[in-house]
């Protein structure tokens, strides 16, 4: 039971308190780049969640069974990049073969995520926090959910923004960055929620 509570707390704290985008500031590029429409933003979030969960798993396995065993922790960045890239390639092939519908939905986003800093950040945080296997998987999944939450919220705001009377100088990118800042401030409000 205690284990379960711990996992649940980890999940909530990763989604809200330590949100990858708005608190850790990882993955800003897709956050601003693909948040024009709720539909595509959600697809992006879905693909990212998927890859992040896999990454959580893979990085823990690699770190525990290869890097720590041979005392090669200094190679973690390089190793993670190789493994994640190969993994995503593999997943892409697999999905293309088994589910063309899902492949169409994720589309270009899947290979794009490979080189996203949020993914590498996730792998590095897992090793530095010394999470267990289950914790790593939950952490990866929760990070993806947090990412999806932030990007979909942003897309919703930006869709409404299309109809708003924005002053000329702030149109487009400036108002988007302002909104991102205010959203990050709002998420700071969660910081007292769970002490972790």
């Amino acid at each position, binding site marked *: 039971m205690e284990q379960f509570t711990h996992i649940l707390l980890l999940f909530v704290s990763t989604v809200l308190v330590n949100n990858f985008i708005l608190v850790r500031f990882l993955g800003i590029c897709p956050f601003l780049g693909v948040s024009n429409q709720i539909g595509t933003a959600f697809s992006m979030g879905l693909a990212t969640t998927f890859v992040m969960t896999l990454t959580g798993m893979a990085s823990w396995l690699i770190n525990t069974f290869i890097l720590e065993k041979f005392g090669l922790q200094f190679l973690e960045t390089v*190793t993670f990049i190789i493994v994640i890239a*190969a993994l995503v390639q593999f997943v892409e092939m*697999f999905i293309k073969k088994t589910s063309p519908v899902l492949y169409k939905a994720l589309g270009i986003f899947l290979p794009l995520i490979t080189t996203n800093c949020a993914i590498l950040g996730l792998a590095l945080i897992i090793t530095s926090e010394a999470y267990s296997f289950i914790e790593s998987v939950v952490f990866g999944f929760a990070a993806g959910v947090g990412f999806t939450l932030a990007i979909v919220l942003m897309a919703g705001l930006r869709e409404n923004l299309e109809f708003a009377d924005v002053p000329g100088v702030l149109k487009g990118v400036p108002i988007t960055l302002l909104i991102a800042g205010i959203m990050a401030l709002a998420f700071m409000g969660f910081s007292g929620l769970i002490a972790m």
Partner: protein
Amino acid sequence: MVNIYIASLITLGGLGVILAIGLGLAAKAFHIEKDERLELVENALPGVNCGACGYVGCAALAEAIVSGEAPVEGCPVGGSSTAQAIAEIMGTTATVGEREIAQVLCKGGLKETLTTVEYQGIQTCKAANMISGGTKSCQYGCLGLGDCAVACPFDAIIMNDNGLPEIDPDKCTGCGECVRACPRNIITMAPISKRTHIRCSSYDHGKVVRQICTVGCIGCGICSRVCPEDAIRMENNLAIIDYEKCTNCGLCAEKCPTGTIEYSEILIEAI
């Protein structure tokens, strides 16, 4: 100490080899039968990914052509030769309209117009147009900073010594990038067989045009009256030609008092 080098080499190298083999096997195992025409069509396309067809790139257009979504003559850049090659692959015939190339509707270079302002800001037409309205006296004419030449994916536009863009009809494919790049909208697409072009875009009154440019259209309307096909109309002090009606007789160019209308003797060979 040496051990660590060897260990890292073996680990990373081993990982690389294992992943490469794994991916190679996976590619075989998850191989999907693709339409073999897809690759052929893609190879037949120019491959510059200019986007003139309205798709993301040549690969996207190839996919659309194979799936029947786009016509075989969907690539405006490749012209008839490309369309025919694709039609052959797809087993149909292509009907191609005439090739269009870009025409610059301004003749007012550094010699013909006055330079009223010295501009040292960002060296693009777009910036100059926003800040000072350009350095030349004419508010409708070419700014001369070469946004079109930069935009051209085929290197068909060169800025000449007179500060005007020159279009190489052999290289121009009619993709329209320059038309979109020009902040003054003085570039237009015209069928390649048309020889008569009214090279002015100024809506100023004749008196004003005379003061600021030696080759501008003064809106006298002689060309419009002399044209046997009624292909030229006067609009806001500017003569505008209708390329569909023009029969290349060249009368208007002969009568134009300012030499704004250009009639090229050599017919550019239709490719």
